C-alpha cells in the first residue's frame, strides 16, 4: 500500500540534512510553502542552498531562514522586493552567496534536471553579464548560452489538495514553480490544505502526478 501522507510538519521535513539544496516553491507570497519552511527552521537544518524565485520578505519563510543564518547560498531571479530586508542584510555582509539566474532559465534548469537532461542552450542571457564564463554556441544564427541542470536534494511545495498517492492539484497562480520543483528533487515534500480519497481527484485535471511526490502533509484548514 502506498500512503505518502505524514501526520506532522516535523515528520514531513525529518531527515533533511545540513548542506542540502532545497527548492522552495512560490512567486512573491503566492504558493510559498510557509509552514514547511518553518518546520525546517524548527528542525535546525543549516548550511542550505536555497533555490527560489524571490529571497523572502518580512520575517517569514525564506526571510526567516536568512535571518537565522541557515542559508549559505541562494539561487534566484529576483531577490530584491518590498520587505526583502534579511536577504539584503546578509548579502551586504557577505554572509550569503547569490547566484542570479533569469527566471525562465531558473525554471528550465530545474525542468532539465527533472527530465534527466545534461543542460540546454538558450538565447536568454546571451551577450549579458549573466552569461559570463558560459559556453556560447550559435544555433540558427543566434547566440545561445549553455545552461546546466539544477536538481534539488529536496523540494518544498505548496498545493491545494492531495490524495494518499501524492497526486496534486493547486489553487490559481499558486501553482507557479510547484510542478517543476516537485519533479526536480530527490525528496519532494508537499503541504496541502486538504487530503482527499484516492480517486476523488479528476484524473483529467491532476497537475502533479504522485510519482514526483514523496511526502504530503496537511496544514491550515483544521
Amino acid at each position, binding site marked *: 500500500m502506498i500512503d505518502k501522507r505524514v501526520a506532522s510538519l516535523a515528520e514531513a521535513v525529518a531527515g533533511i540534512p545540513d548542506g542540502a539544496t532545497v527548492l522552495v516553491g512560490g512567486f512573491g*507570497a503566492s504558493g510559498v510553502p510557509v509552514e514547511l519552511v518553518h518546520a525546517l527552521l524548527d528542525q535546525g537544518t543549516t548550511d542550505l542552498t536555497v533555490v527560489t524565485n524571490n529571497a523572502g520578505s518580512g520575517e517569514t519563510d525564506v526571510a526567516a531562514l536568512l535571518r537565522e543564518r541557515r542559508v549559505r547560498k541562494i539561487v534566484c531571479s529576483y531577490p530584491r522586493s518590498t520587505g526583502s530586508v534579511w536577504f539584503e542584510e546578509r548579502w551586504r555582509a557577505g554572509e550569503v552567496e547569490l547566484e542570479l539566474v533569469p527566471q525562465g532559465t531558473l525554471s528550465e534548469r530545474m525542468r532539465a534536471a527533472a527530465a534527466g537532461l545534461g543542460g540546454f542552450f538558450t538565447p536568454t542571457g546571451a551577450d549579458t553579464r549573466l552569461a559570463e564564463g558560459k559556453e556560447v554556441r550559435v544555433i540558427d544564427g543566434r547566440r545561445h548560452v549553455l545552461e546546466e541542470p539544477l536538481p534539488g536534494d529536496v523540494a518544498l511545495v505548496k498545493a491545494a489538495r492531495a490524495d494518499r498517492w501524492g497526486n496534486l492539484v493547486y489553487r490559481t497562480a499558486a501553482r507557479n*514553480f510547484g510542478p517543476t520543483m516537485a519533479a526536480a528533487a530527490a525528496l519532494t515534500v508537499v503541504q496541502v490544505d486538504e487530503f482527499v480519497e484516492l480517486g476523488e481527484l479528476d484524473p483529467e485535471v491532476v497537475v502533479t502526478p504522485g510519482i514526483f511526490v514523496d511526502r504530503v502533509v496537511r496544514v491550515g484548514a483544521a
Partner: protein
Amino acid sequence: MSLEGRLDMRAVARRVARDIPDGSYVNLGIGLPTLVADCVGSDKEIVYHSENGILGMGPAPAPGAEDPELINAGKQPVTLLPGGAFFHHTDAFLMMRGGHVDLTVLGAFQVSEAGDLANWATDDASHPPAVGGAMDLAVGARRVLVMTSHTTKAGEPKLVPRCSYPLTAAGVVDRVYTDLAVLDVTTEGFLVREMVAGLDPDDLQGATAARLTFAADLAVLDPS
C-alpha cells in the same frame, strides 16, 4: 533646447495600445507598461499573459475581493477573465522564450541603435542585482515594444549608440515609443516614424545620443 509637446506617459500608453492587434497574446512588463492595458479599446480582445502562470489576466479586483495567490508579475492582485487559464512556471516561460507570446511592452533605461535593451540593472552596487523575467521576455517575445521617456529625469538621452548599462538582451527591440516620438529600430538605426506636434527634428536629434533618420512619411504623433 525646446522640447515642445512632450506627452505624459498615459498618452504614450494610448499610442502603444493602438498598435496592439486584436487577438494578440501580450505580456506587459511591470511598471509603466501596465498602463497600456487600460488604454486598449474594448473593440479588441487581447489575452494578457503573466510570467507566474496566467493567460487571460483581468484587471485588479474590487477592494476586499483580492486573492493573495492570484497576483501579477509585479505581485499586485489581479483577476482571471472567462476563458483564462493557469499553468505552471516552466510552461509560462516556455510561452515567453519559445516565441508564443505575440508581443511585449517593456520599460527601458537605454535602447541602442542596434536594438539592444538595458532595463534590468544600473550598476548601483549598494543593492543586490535582480533580473526576474526581463531577459526571457526580451529574447523570446515575437515583437518587443519599448515604452519610455525620451530622456532621463536629468535630461540624459536614453536612445544611444551603445548601451552603457548592463544589457538585458542584444538586438531585440522592434519599436520605441517615447514622450516625443515613435521610432523603429532598423538595420540603419533609429528611424523616426512619428513626432509630437510642433517639435523640430533637430531638437529631437538634440535629445537623442544615437543618430536619427526620419521617415519620408513622417507623421504627427497623435496623443488622443
